[in-house]
């Protein structure tokens, strides 16, 4: 049993003195774990950093075994992002969410493609990452929820049935609700940030915060709640960081 594929490193847990158990995400095979001998060594440690795109090779005698992983570095996202606070928080958050939310060995090619695009955006241009990284992450989280079967339904208002002009999302059903339909219930609904419906909008810290609360609610309740796990600490820290940003100010470097 063996495969070779491009993969994103989601996490690497120390195992023994010199090895790590790496968790990678591939398009064809989904999320896979494998033992990396010497993964914590000086030579290999930089390769197994979360967010790195690698060319991975997994092999085992039987498919149900943990197996062994080896890899060559393709794109060092982690090293490129480390100096920048917000992009690093975004990288940590998306890797931790994918690490905990995706089922093992089940292909999710759209989630993989979306994560590659997101990490490329974060690592290639720091300024662009500061400007539009949070929105890209929220869109990716919405796509992840949809792929896992917990997608938001934003086609029409759940109350009036009319399409367009949606301003809220029901925290129970995940369906969009217009301002008219929300009526007196608006305080109980999750605000829908405009950039979710408008592809060209990069939002601001206030709407980013709304977006993170929106996807965070469904990630916590459905994707992680189904496994009786809390949202990853990296995701919660990102939310705290965004909520602490001045509304009209610039994203901090």
């Amino acid at each position: 049993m063996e495969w070779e594929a491009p993969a994103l490193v989601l996490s690497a847990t120390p195992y023994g003195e010199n090895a790590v158990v790496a968790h990678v995400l591939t398009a064809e095979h989904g999320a896979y774990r494998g033992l990396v001998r010497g993964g914590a060594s000086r030579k290999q440690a930089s390769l197994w950093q979360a967010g790195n795109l690698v060319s991975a090779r997994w092999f085992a005698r039987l498919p149900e075994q943990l197996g062994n992983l080896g890899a060559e570095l393709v794109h060092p996202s982690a090293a490129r992002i480390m100096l920048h606070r917000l992009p690093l928080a975004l990288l940590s958050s998306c890797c931790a969410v994918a690490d905990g939310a995706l089922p093992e060995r089940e292909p999710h090619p759209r989630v993989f493609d979306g994560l590659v695009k997101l990490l490329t955006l974060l690592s290639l241009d720091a300024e662009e990452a500061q400007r539009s990284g949070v929105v890209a992450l929220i869109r990716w989280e919405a796509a992840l929820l949809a792929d896992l079967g917990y997608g938001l339904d934003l086609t029409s208002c759940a109350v009036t049935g009319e399409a367009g002009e949606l301003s809220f999302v029901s925290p129970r059903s995940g369906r969009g609700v217009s301002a008219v339909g929300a009526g007196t219930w608006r305080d109980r609904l999750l605000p829908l940030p405009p950039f979710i419906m408008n592809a060209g909008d990069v939002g601001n810290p206030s709407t980013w915060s709304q977006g993170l609360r929106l996807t965070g609610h469904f990630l916590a309740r459905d994707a992680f709640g189904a496994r009786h796990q809390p949202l990853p600490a990296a995701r919660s820290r990102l939310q705290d960081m965004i909520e602490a940003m001045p509304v009209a100010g610039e994203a901090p470097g």
Partner: protein
Amino acid sequence: MGGPEIERLIELLGKLPGLGPRSARRAALGLLRQPQARLLPLANAMEQAARTVRTCARCGNLDSRDPCTVCSDPNRDQGLICVVEGVGDLWALERAGVHRGLYHVLGGTLSPLGGIGPEDLNLSPLLARLEAGGVREVILALGATVEGATTQHWLSERLAPSGATISRVGQGVPMGGALDVLDDGTLAAALMARRAS
């Protein structure tokens, strides 16, 4: 093989970092062959260390004194604190002899997978030292990993109100390292952290 005492010795040695059952057997044999010259002095040294070594309440270093030798050295620069992840890092910097200030051992880095959150880090004594005044610079010397960098950004934010300059150690090409054999991540970090010469 040689009685329960020897088995116990091998078992305990085998739990040390860098030693497995095979090397533990070799080490035990080496000690037992010269009990007066090796085994008893080692046992005494270990007993003495276990009895006297403790964690320094100021910086988190391991020493037989509290405050530790570094903290109580009046010749060190009291206005310069280097924050490291573990005591091993402190020892490495002391070996290099490049830092003449004080230290603070954080006891780890933020790691969601390792279950290490902000409350698990040894931060309060550092904040107390900064509050007491007299510190002009804090050097963050944490690992060049995603966890290390996340902790650096988080610490920078927490320590900023103190007014002390917050700096971090450089990243890049190691001494004696040729560019063509460096991994892509190190090269990328070195280029991004370049400075005018």
